[in-house]
């Protein structure tokens, strides 16, 4: 199948390794992957700040870049959700609508479309999984602790397949880390406090690595860990799944 790789702007700029791991995973499971060179961003930074109306040309660009693929896959739940909920293009509304139904976050793409049942990677460490809100509560890639409903976790399921990996359970299984896009600078005090508390939960459970399906949350937590001079690392789930 023809898969368009959508790499969010900050991943492209700061975490090329995450994008490379995503590409490797998709190719390993038989996808023919294309990476449109003209891509930039999903437009979420503007939209969540109240400037959805400024995201029009960003949207048009997105449609132009990705219309041709069977699926669009992105290693970020948040950017995926934004496209799914908000991609519009007055010039080609049908294409935009179709893209909204063909875009997937990486881990849900692996479990639901590629139907991955085993992974040949090995990672002998204690790992804490951060459930990023947009992937979880927006895309429903994991069950939400607020609901009276059967628990499940798509990224959790993938991590369980990794040899040697010990997934710890946290005090608060799905509390927000406080990144929140521009919230992280606009509401700096609360954002950092939320991040510190989330990091503490992982540290208390003695993890070696904090992982997740959204690099933005991990970037925020990494920033806090580094300031605390902690040895605990953050890794995107794709980076763990490619430890083969």
């Amino acid at each position, binding site marked *: 199948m023809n898969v368009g790789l959508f790499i969010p*702007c900050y991943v492209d700029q700061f975490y090329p390794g995450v994008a490379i791991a995503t590409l490797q995973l998709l190719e390993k499971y038989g996808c023919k992957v294309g990476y449109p060179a003209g891509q930039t961003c999903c437009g979420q930074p503007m939209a969540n700040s*109240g400037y959805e109306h400024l995201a029009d040309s960003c949207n048009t660009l997105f449609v132009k870049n990705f219309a041709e693929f069977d699926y669009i896959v992105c290693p970020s739940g948040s950017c995926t959700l934004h496209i799914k909920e908000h991609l519009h293009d007055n010039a080609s509304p049908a294409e935009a609508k179709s893209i909204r139904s063909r875009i997937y976050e990486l881990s849900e793409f692996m479990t639901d479309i590629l139907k991955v049942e085993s992974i040949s990677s090995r990672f002998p460490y204690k790992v804490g999984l951060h459930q990023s809100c947009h992937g979880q509560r927006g895309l429903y890639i994991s069950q939400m602790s607020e609901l009276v409903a059967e628990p499940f976790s798509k990224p959790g399921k993938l991590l369980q397949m990794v040899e040697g990996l010990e997934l710890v359970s946290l005090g608060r299984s799905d509390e927000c880390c406080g990144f929140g896009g521009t919230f992280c600078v606009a509401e700096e005090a609360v954002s*950092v406090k939320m991040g510190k508390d989330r990091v503490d939960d992982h540290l208390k459970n003695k993890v070696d690595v904090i992982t997740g399906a959204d690099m933005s949350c991990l970037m925020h937590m990494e920033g806090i860990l580094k300031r605390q001079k902690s040895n605990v690392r953050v890794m995107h789930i794709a980076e763990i799944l490619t430890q083969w």
Partner: protein
Amino acid sequence: MVNHVSLSETFNKDEERVNWHDETLWWIRQKRDKAAWQIPEWEELREMASQIKMNTLSNLHDYLLQFEKNALANGIVVHWAADADEHNKIVYDILTKNKVERIVKSKSMLTEECHLNHFLAEKGIDVIDTDLGERIVQLADEAPSHIVLPCIHKKKEEIGELFHRFLGTPEGNADPQFLTAAARIHLREKFMTRRVAITGVNFAIAETGEFVICTNEGNADMGAHLSDIHIACMGIEKLIPQRTHLSVFLRLLARSATGQPVTTYSSHFSKPLAGQELHIVLVDNGRTRQLGRPDFRNSLKCIRCGACMNTCPVYRRSGGHSYHNAISGPIGAILAPNLDMKEYADLPFASTLCGSCSNVCPVKIDIHQQLYKWRQVLTKEGHSPAAKTAAMKVMAGTLSRPGLYRFAGKAGRWFMRNIPWLTNNRLNPWYKQREMPAPPKESFGEWFKKMRK
């Protein structure tokens, strides 16, 4: 300028208190979870409640008239108030007509919203709040910080201090049981001597013209039953069509609020006691305006359980007062801009849009979606700082031109540098308590171009 950012920054100066506040409310969230899991059909109940409220809102006009007709037939005096001011005047008129200068009041978020206490105080009327938590914030001359737990921001030692000052309890005594007993004695005298009691309303039933008040302390009942005149104040969205619907809401309310199966008292008031006057004030105060906004109409389903506050990771770490509005937390943030966009333009941004609020809400209000939509409305209406608009335009321009984007990235990872439009100091707030990732040698785009072609 006082806004959520500055108020929560102040709140966060005392980290230990933030931890305590967070943990106290998280504990209530956990109690709520446990109570919800006792009901296998919990999610269906929420859906049902949401639909009953949808029906109510869609037919509000008819239900209100039906309620009025039945209430009048029951012997209740019905008043209509278009706004807070009219509401306050109606209450004041009843008091002056009866030459009453001292009254008791049980918890009512509506009267908080209308600033009734302040209004009456200026007219020389003495109001005693009889809900323990409300009495505590009243003594402290503060507003409630939470709609269900008005003094949740106060530690027991601080309450002991207040009681020592105002009620004469021994200095240094912070034993909750002792303090509650002291409050009881203090309030008992007020209950016995005051002729007028104001209460709120949790549910008003169109079919029967009765209303229901839920409390744990029984203070609303005590006030209402000992008074000559009972005035119940309610927002017009408090209606439900039929008595049978109450079973759905009573199962949800206390479980969502505190994790109790039901409130200690769920009292029905349908007609005045012999020799008593029973008034009900139906208040609009912007509700019909909100009803006319399709994107925000749902917010009127709220039954004021407070669950969205307890679960909100921002609220728990910024405190109720940081919302500078009678109703705080996520629901406050979508109700307040309807009252005054300029004054409350900051509130829809006081969220990470994590969505936990919408998930706990017993009437399934899409709170976080409405926060997102308010952001768009407020920006379009011009309630956004000019510097932010300018920065956003630059960002939008860069992100819609791949060439420029790649150049800007190379020129120094524009991403973080483009965000800090908000502070006046030139420091990027990211760095205050966090590091940035070390910039890599090349972006993924550059790597891909080199490796794959």
